């Protein structure tokens, strides 16, 4: 069982979020489920997903947003700020 490198997983997650911008809101657990589906169980686990998300938000490539629940999104300007 070869674990996927964190950066590769982070890249894949980023693409999922970016490609579905405006169509789907991702929660951390949705990204985890989708990642496990994509790479296969045994190659990706919960901790690795947490690490990949941490990587993405620490670099500011994804940001957390709150609309009733917490979601991960590509940074953009807030509508309410206008």
């Amino acid at each position, binding site marked *: 069982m070869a674990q996927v490198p964190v950066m590769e997983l982070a890249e894949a997650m980023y693409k999922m979020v970016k490609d579905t911008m405006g169509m789907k809101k991702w929660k951390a*657990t949705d990204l985890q489920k989708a990642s496990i589906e994509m790479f296969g169980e045994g190659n990706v686990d919960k901790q690795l997903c947490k690490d990949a998300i941490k990587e993405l938000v620490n670099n500011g490539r994804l940001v957390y947003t709150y609309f009733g629940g*917490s979601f991960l999104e590509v940074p953009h300007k807030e509508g309410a700020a206008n």
Partner: protein
Amino acid sequence: MAVDKKYATPLLDELEKGEWPSFVKEIKSSAETNPMANDLLGLLEQSYDEKKGHWKHGGIVGVMGYGGGVIGRYTDLSEKFPNISHFHTMRVNQPSGWFYTSEALRTLCDIWDAHGSGLTNMHGSTGDIVFLGTRTEELEPIFKKLTDAGFDLGGSGSDVRTPSCCCGKARCEWACYDTMALTHYITNKFQDELHRPAFPYKMKLKMSGCPNDCVASVARADISIIGTWRDEIQVDMPKVREYAKNGTDIVKEIVMMCPGKCLDWDGTDLKIDNSSCRHCMHCINTMPKALAPGKDKGAVILVGSKAPIVEGALLSSVLVPFIKIEEPFEESELWELIENMWDLWCEEGKNRERIGEFIQRVGMGNFLEAVGLEPQPDMVAHPRENPYIFYEEYFEEGE
């Protein structure tokens, strides 16, 4: 900073009358020097006049790397009240038990005076130090100053909310475990869950040292850790007699009020049937010099309470009737149980479904089975009443 424009506030002024503290008075005092506080007065007066709110929720603002701690707010009257076009709240993780040096308080206030409205809520219902009202571009500078001073942001959104506790052993003789130490440990242990929201909804942990439950964890924490004992109430009989002599009507005020009906007073001796005691603290609270919790102390773990938001209010249910809470905390079985619950709730919970609602939906029996706990008679809605667990083996025997 100079405040250029004053607003007439006849409606708000009403709230300064009377003997009690007034938030209007405090905002006015800040408004002398702070333009944000000043515009807030103007906006509030207009809202009171029109009976209409002028705030918008924001969902994006925060500090880099964190998904919680900042609650975005904007006004829809930003042209009229430009100083509060942004009015974000920051939650700052309070120290366990809310103990501060005056220097720490001054540091917090200085940071907030320099970067925000100067208005605080010490403390919010979440337990946090609440900084009310700042602009997006001030968030990172505030965060930098806070962390330099040893503070961190608290929780918001679908994360572990800032854990909070009663003052416990620091001030209170009833504390059955060290709430402050445990809360400090939990805050550090769950840093990832606190700052990077990954749950279906919020997850609050509150720690009370005894069943008096001064942080009301039984009513508003998803996980409540409440101190208790499993041996006998400690009794100092001469002191009990002294209470009686000094006018305490032990039968009326204590025996008859005991929900376990386990007390008996014959005028000289107080007998306690400890096996029926519900650990309600009433007798101990009424005669604090004579009675005290037992010596074999620990905590009861409860799950599932919440205030009404999406659905109605819930109280907690007992999950673990007794567990020792002792250092080293990392060896406790509690963490595995908590992570099992979180895994299940993350896997099966709906968006915005609190864990208590989740348990109601799937059933306590199924929940216990999934997290690996045996049902016990202590898991009841009320003592001596309906357990809401089905004991399947009983059914099999009967059939």
